[in-house]
């Protein structure tokens, strides 16, 4: 990696469409923030500083999903300038809650329902999509918001040139580590089995079912989870809505193919 005269890696932090929760979390790392600024040369971070430079970068951390034409251009530009692009937060990784609608038609209908027939002046809205719909992403750091410790250790590994090490299994694993009684077995619709771990199963620790906010796990067995919830008496639309909430475009595939479901 090229280093500037301070011999520090150049980093840019960008927010697209999202709640900026992840950027806030980064700001919230008060003590560690000093370390971050010491370890790296932050070239651009709208939320934290004003003298942002848009030049070549070693690492770009991108938060939020792409939901306008302007953002589409922006993300392509970031990719061009950055050697390594890291998607941070559920929105950037999987589209997040804005990408919950399953196909273009449904999205249009919904957009009309909410905004009527207004024309957007500044920039044309496009369906909200995860950034890897437009560019190659090197590393993903999901979460809603991201977990502080995981963010710091991931950033640290990337700064040292090592790929991040994230859990590749589902929330259930952490849930068992925390010795929770499984909610699915009590007929509560928990999405833990199809959701990526990393949150520390925080919802279930508080007796709430997992809603999937870390996005789908690599090997999500959506079919089995779907059928299990059907057996427990939840209806098709309820399950579809629940699953689509955070996992965004990824779930569309499954429901698109689910033509032959028997009652």
């Amino acid at each position, binding site marked *: 990696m090229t280093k500037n005269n301070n011999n520090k890696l150049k980093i840019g932090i960008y927010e697209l469409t999202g709640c900026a929760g992840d950027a806030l979390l980064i700001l919230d790392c008060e003590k560690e923030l000093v370390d971050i600024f010491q370890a790296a040369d932050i070239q651009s971070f709208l939320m934290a500083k004003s003298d942002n430079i848009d030049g070549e970068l070693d690492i770009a951390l991108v938060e939020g999903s792409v939901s306008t034409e302007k953002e589409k251009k922006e993300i392509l530009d970031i990719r061009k300038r950055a050697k390594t692009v890291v998607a941070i937060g559920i929105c950037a990784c999987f589209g997040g809650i804005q990408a919950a609608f399953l196909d273009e038609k449904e999205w249009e209908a919904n957009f009309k329902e909410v905004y009527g027939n207004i024309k957007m002046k500044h920039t044309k809205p496009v369906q909200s999509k995860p950034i890897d719909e437009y560019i190659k992403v090197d590393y993903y750091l999901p979460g809603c918001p991201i977990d502080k410790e995981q963010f710091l250790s991931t950033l*640290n590994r990337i700064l*040292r040139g*090592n*790929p991040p*090490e994230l859990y590749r299994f589902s929330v259930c694993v952490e849930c068992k580590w925390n010795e929770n009684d499984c909610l699915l077995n009590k007929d509560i619709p928990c999405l833990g089995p199809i959701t990526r771990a990393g949150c520390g199963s925080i919802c279930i620790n508080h007796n709430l079912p997992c809603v999937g906010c870390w996005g789908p796990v690599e090997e999500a067995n959506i079919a089995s989870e779907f059928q299990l919830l059907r057996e427990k008496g939840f209806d098709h639309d309820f399950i579809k809505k629940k699953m689509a909430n955070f996992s965004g475009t990824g779930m569309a595939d499954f429901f698109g193919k689910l033509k032959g479901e028997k009652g």
Partner: protein
Amino acid sequence: MNGENKQLTISNPFLPEPARIVRTYYLTEDVKFFQVRVVDMDKALSFKYCPGQFAMISVVGAGEAPFSISSTPSRPGLLEFCIRKVGGVTNALFRMKENDLIGIRGPYGNGFPVERMRDKDILIVVGGLGTAPLRSVLLYCLDNRDQFRRVSLLHGAKRPSEMIFREEFFALKEREDLECHLAVDGDDTGTWTENIGVVTTLFPKLKEIDPSSTYALVCGPPVMYKFVIKEFVKLNIPKDQILMTLERRMKCGVGKCGHCAIDYIYTCLDGPVFTYWDVIHMRELI
């Protein structure tokens, strides 16, 4: 009791020993050679291994991974490895320079049964990175040349530039007491003077062998095993004299983490060297 300053009564098999990279250079585009020395002199000399065993190498912050030892115990003090760049640990290793420190622990695994192989004919077939463990046996046989009968080597690579230890093997070709045939799948240099074709095409070049007193060793990419073993069987080499080393995911190397398990066999303890007989009798092996 205070947990932190407790005296431990058993030694910790997970604790890496600091070792220094003495020499490192590229063998091919994505394979590097590493020569390392355990820093503590006593420990360096007491690192007793046998060909076919492996060690766990670690880089602080990047992790730990298993690598075959490719030097020979007949030349103690220095350990040698050839490592292909594929992921976290190997990338970190590739960034390291001579004199840098790494962690090492081992040796682990069963290794080749050199005692049983004594006074027998040795036939070694390697492809690609399979050279790593088999170079150890080969050098061991050559260093103790009077303990073995005929030693033959068939070595295949995709292209000349991908032949690991190319120069070393060309030099070995000159030895009278070693039968050595080299092949590449394809020659993109136009200067290759040896055979062209996959490694199995070298079998007809072998001088006649005495199967019942031959140990046949193979290591290479997974696709190679089936075809090479077929040749061994054709030559009538007994199944329990056909030896191969297998790869599995390994996180501890000492039979604890479970990752290398096949049925109730732990590849890190009972392997990585298996006989063809083992393979036939165990599901999942290859």
